[in-house]
């Protein structure tokens, strides 16, 4: 069973299907909202909680794939489980490439769907953590002076203080002070941690 805070959105143009899927997911302790069209969902705003969307691929308006693109722009942490009436291969492949967590065919087995949704929520939680971490890191990154930023970049490249001092044409002692401030401002304990976050957030690369 999922932990307290999360949201599952079901989008399907068939009211009977919508009600049934909602019952099923609610019976597994999931918190569910339903939408009868992809378009209503465009009013969606990121919730900042793990969330997942169960989407019928064959709704006659905005195609599911298109919605997937739009949604991804709106909220990178929302993961999608696709339901489809007919497992048409090129579409499924495309959906997978675009990052659909799962691709299930209707009529869908309840346990499979619940499992897929729970998996999707977990991925959403991960994505949310990454986003939060990234946002925090980017905010802290702004605290660095240009010089500290240079030092940080070179530290990640694995250079020793001596080498950095040489690169920047300054004293090793100064570099050491800069380096300590970088670690402190970015709230990281080790060079390894700094490198990992920089890698994940795609920051502090050489320009």
């Amino acid at each position, binding site marked *: 069973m999922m932990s307290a805070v999360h949201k599952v959105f079901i989008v399907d143009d068939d009211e009977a299907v919508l009600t*049934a899927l909602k019952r099923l997911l609610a019976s597994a302790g999931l918190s569910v909202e339903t939408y009868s069209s992809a378009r209503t969902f465009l009013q969606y705003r990121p919730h900042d909680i793990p969330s997942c969307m169960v989407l019928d691929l064959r709704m006659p308006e905005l195609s599911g794939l298109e919605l997937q693109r739009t949604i991804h722009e709106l909220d990178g942490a929302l993961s999608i489980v696709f339901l489809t009436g007919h497992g048409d291969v090129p579409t499924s492949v495309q959906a997978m490439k675009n990052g659909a967590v799962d691709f299930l065919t209707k009529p869908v087995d309840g346990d499979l769907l619940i499992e897929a949704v729970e998996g999707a929520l977990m991925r959403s939680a991960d994505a949310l953590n990454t986003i939060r971490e990234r946002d925090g890191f980017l905010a802290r990154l702004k605290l660095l002076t240009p010089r500290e930023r240079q030092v940080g970049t070179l530290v990640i490249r694995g250079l020793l203080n001596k080498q950095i001092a040489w690169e920047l044409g300054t004293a090793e002692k100064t570099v050491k002070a800069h380096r300590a401030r970088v670690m402190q401002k970015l709230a990281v304990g080790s060079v390894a941690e700094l490198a990992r976050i920089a890698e994940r957030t795609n920051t502090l690369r050489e320009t």
Partner: protein
Amino acid sequence: MLTVSWGRRCRTVARTRAARARWDCVQLFFVAILPIAILAGAPTSTFSESIPERHVLVLLSDQESRMAAETDLIDGLRETLSPPHADHITLHMQSLEVEETPRDAHDHALVLWLRERFRVSSIDVVVSVGVSASTFAARYADSIWPRVAVAFVAVDEAWVAATERPARSVPIIVHNEYLSTAHTALMLVPGAHRIVLVSDAAINRRRDSLIHQQLSLLPTPADILDLTDAPRDELALRLHSLMPSDVILAITPLPGAASHTRPGLAEVAKRADRPMFTVDESLVGEGAVGGLVMSYGNVGRRSGVLVQRLLDGADPARMQSTIAADTAWVFDQRQLTRWKLDDRNLPAGSDVRFRDSSLSIRLMLVSLILLTVLAGVIGRRFMVSRPQRPPAVASAQVPQVVTEFDQQRNLHDLAHMNMISAMGEVAASVAHELNQPLTAVLSNAQAARRLLTGNSVGAAELREILDDIIEQDKRAGDVIQGMRRIMKKDQFEWVALDMRALVTDVVHLLAHQAAWHGVLLLTEFGSGQPKVRGDRVQLQQVILNLVLNGIEASRVEGGARRRCVSIVTRLEGKSLRLSVRDSGNGIPADADERLFEPFFTTKRNGLGMGLSISRSIVELHRGEIRARNVPGGGAEFSVVLPLEEGDAA
């Protein structure tokens, strides 16, 4: 039984140009819509007296703008509220001549008048079409028809947000897909990064800001140049000086929302030197490249279903506002070519119209294979002489009768084969129709099982789930029953058949297919239940071929704007005439002669088998099949079959 009453208040104003335009619309209504309504309402069953008639009042905004949309919508509504979808409903149409901004004195007079007019018939459901009529209905419906459910059809989010509605009401919101259309326009046109908004009507500010809000969600931000308010001269000037990075997006008002004050959008498309995209189906073919367009016919059908539920006693307050999602990607090939746009970049499932007809290699291959397979069978059929009489008993010992019987069985098999291949065309929609109820049944059942394990389920909730399961199971059963009656390979049987039942089965089977292509299927049966003698599979095959052809023909562009296929049966002395009429372009003059020959086809993906098999079947049934073009466009195929003895009029 469906009857239509049409009320209209006459204003004693001089016949200004606007008034004349309105009058034209009324005429259009009488000429184009009323006859169809009467056609659709023709059958009267003999036991109809015992069931109470229910009355639905449809309020129209009656603005001359968006008339095409409103007409489509009403047709869709009417279709769902008439046989075979519904019985015993009387539709009352009432134009209001109101505007979106209420005018108190005028409105109060109208309220008094409506009270008087509908004093006698007790109205069960009120439907208001378009924003103006809906604004009126929202204010006064409760006082004119207390406690009557109201459906506000074809309003938008802006209207819902700004309007106080009665408790027993439900809105059906239409949503023009500007965002998706603009996004696709930017993807499709190389180098495009500015969207120019034009309109043929004054756009209300609230709506304008909603459009901008939609466009602000574009994944790739674009500049927006809003010319919807630009005066006529400025608009003309600006249209001539657009940049290569511009695409035009036509903003079209909702039904009943505004009147024309500007040059038409078709004119804009012609004058501007950049491609124009649209969310209005009627502009595709009038110079627009295309877009995610709204089918108001489907909005009408959806509204009809909702009205049926209201008539069945559903509580409108408990229904969610329904958003009509009846859109499809539609493009004009000529415009794609004109602007050198790559149709490989079109959204999946796009309907590209005005294409040059050419046989794809795949279809040619299929044709070749089928040709080889079928040639033998057909050859045999065409070489033997036509049987004079169908056999009375299948086990006849006389050699000649055995030969005839063999021929008939061959034709029976061939008809079945042809039927199966025709089913390919409807298979996808049938699969979808089955999948939905099956999904609902499975999910409901599994939900119930989980709830039982958790011991937290109430009897009421379980009953509700079981009711839904039963209802959805029946829904699936109905789909299958309809399929079976047509698809199953019965033994060849020579029996008396009720023509009306045959036609009804075919119409049910093709309803989804027709709706998908925006084609209306209309049936009209003469009185009684005349029977003809023959083989069910074969005769149903003939009807199916003719109706499928009709749908295909009506879809083509350049035909009548209202796409419909009407299927009419009529007694003529000792015969029964079945005619199938479409709203397409008619039969080309050079095709006339060869229409019923095997392998002759005018269709892009046709095999040329349908009509030739149909003729063989009809001749075997001692009947005749004819084709002709009807005045005013479209083709009509008629089959005349001898009536079962004792059934003649």
